[in-house]
């Protein structure tokens, strides 16, 4: 319990947004536009924009703005809108805790420790890269091993190069983009090494970031040893078998001073867990319903903190929904109806949302998203209400590198039986 003196320092806000990346900004814009005026955004960094600030390459915004923007340009559009709407943003402010009663503590240089009580909270903390510790990379612990995102920050925001001869482990888009970036800045990128038999990166990035610069891509390979005392001096790479175990005799050595790890992103959910929000082991994010509300009333989640997106356009779209839903929640608009569960079936991983309200009144179209568990060609996604197919989507290809999405129309939702709904892929 807080003393009366402390109690008087608690500020009430209708909607509190944590994080001012694209997700937090879109959520705040939507909440404001839906009529919430007592609105506050807290951001740890000195600037708004989140990860986009360091993604200086282009390819953002095709869906939302119908033009290709760079990361900073995409972010600036939202920053301008946030300013135009007069939304209060406290940058340099780290949220330290939240609880299920929506009591929030934060700290900044400017304001010191701050306490808030929120009518609704929107979680938009993004994700971070898997650090080296999360990987079983063997060898010495020398300098010169960075996550690709850290290297991206050095080169693009701070303007200095982490090394001259470089190997990249992981062929997701961030790794590929960094292969090109390092090359253009004068480094020699010797190889991009991928454990899986396919790259999870876009074809466009494989062509324009590796092939354009003759950087070899070793699929079904991994780094088995790291050499160097103070600074990295080389790495050993080997082919792996179908159980992802190194095959003796296939070792290759590279002399290099830098190893960049691009081995996946994990949603940053420490705060979410403090509020005892129910989590999904499949997405590493909160379990949400179609309004992006978590298992705790009045706490919403959107963007990469909910599930790792490939495209910022979809982050923004999802976050507009969360902002609007949070506004409706504090305005006392009740959603009446009964919930059904959406479950992963064959070939499907991490369906979001996991719960869907079949409303008593009129339904709206709901978009569901998931990651294919493997590569499926000429395949069909089926949405099954028990034994009955209620929707389907055919595509030439589904790959784990590209989030799949599918819309459930209002009449489909209204017609659901109330039992579990399963999403599955059939080839």
């Amino acid at each position, binding site marked *: 319990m807080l003393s009366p003196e402390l109690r008087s320092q608690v500020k009430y806000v209708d909607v509190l947004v944590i994080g001012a990346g694209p997700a937090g900004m879109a959520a705040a814009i939507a909440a404001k536009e839906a009529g919430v005026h007592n609105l506050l955004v807290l951001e740890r960094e000195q600037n708004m924009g989140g990860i986009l600030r360091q993604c*200086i390459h282009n390819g953002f915004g095709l869906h939302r703005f119908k033009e290709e923007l760079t990361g900073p340009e995409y972010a600036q559009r939202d920053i301008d809108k946030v300013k135009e709407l007069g939304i209060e943003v406290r940058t340099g402010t780290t949220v330290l805790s939240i609880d299920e009663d929506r009591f929030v503590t934060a700290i900044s240089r400017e304001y010191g420790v701050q306490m808030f009580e929120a009518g609704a909270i929107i979680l938009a903390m993004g994700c971070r890269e898997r650090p080296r510790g999360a990987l079983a990379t063997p060898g010495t612990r020398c300098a010169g091993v960075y996550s690709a995102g850290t290297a991206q920050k050095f080169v693009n925001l701070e*303007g200095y190069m982490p090394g001259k001869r470089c190997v990249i482990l992981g062929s997701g888009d961030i790794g590929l983009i960094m292969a090109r970036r390092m090359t*253009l800045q004068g480094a020699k990128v010797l190889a991009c090494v991928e454990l899986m038999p396919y790259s999870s990166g876009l*074809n466009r990035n*494989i*062509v*324009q970031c590796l092939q354009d610069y003759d950087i070899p891509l070793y699929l079904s390979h991994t780094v088995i040893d790291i050499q160097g005392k103070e600074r990295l001096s080389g790495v050993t790479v080997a082919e792996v078998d179908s159980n992802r175990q190194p095959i003796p005799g296939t070792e290759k050595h590279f002399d290099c001073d830098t190893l960049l790890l691009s081995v996946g992103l994990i949603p940053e959910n420490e705060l979410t867990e403090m509020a005892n929000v129910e989590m999904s082991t499949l997405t590493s994010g909160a379990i949400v319903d179609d309004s992006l509300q978590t298992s705790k009333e009045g706490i919403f989640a959107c963007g990469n903190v909910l599930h790792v997106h490939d495209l910022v356009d979809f982050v923004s779209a999802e976050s507009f929904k969360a902002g609007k839903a949070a506004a409706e929640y504090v305005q006392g608009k009740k959603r009446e109806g009964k919930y059904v569960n959406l479950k992963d079936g064959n070939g499907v991983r991490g369906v979001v949302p996991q719960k869907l309200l079949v409303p008593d009144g009129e339904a709206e179209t709901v978009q569901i998203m998931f990651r294919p568990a493997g590569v499926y060609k000429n395949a069909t996604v089926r949405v099954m209400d028990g034994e009955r197919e209620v929707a389907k989507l055919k595509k030439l*290809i589904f790959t784990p590198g590209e989030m799949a999405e599918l819309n459930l129309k209002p009449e489909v939702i209204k017609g659901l039986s109330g039992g579990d709904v399963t999403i599955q892929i059939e080839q």
Partner: protein
Amino acid sequence: MEHQITCINCPVGCRMTVTVEDGKVTSVTGNTCKRGVAYAEQECVAPQRMVTAVVTVTGRKTPVSVKTRTPIPKVKIFECMKQLAATEITAPVHMGDVVCANVCGTGVDVIATKNVD
């Protein structure tokens, strides 16, 4: 001449064989849809790329991000990077400001993609 290329327009990533004679594409095979042909015609005759980079801001610790306003010929990428490495601009910079006009004689300007106050 025959080129082996991968279409980048969708995740199918069709491997295409493209024949070019006298600077013109005479045959494309391996594509699944006609977008592959359009891509092959551009890519095998006059490949172009957007270039994004950072440029030093005089007296500042952190650089400003920039891009070519439109794609430039692929063969000019490294020359363009060289010119940008030698370029310095002074604050304030606004998104869209021309940082380097007509870079390497391509007729394309390099512009800032963020603001520096």
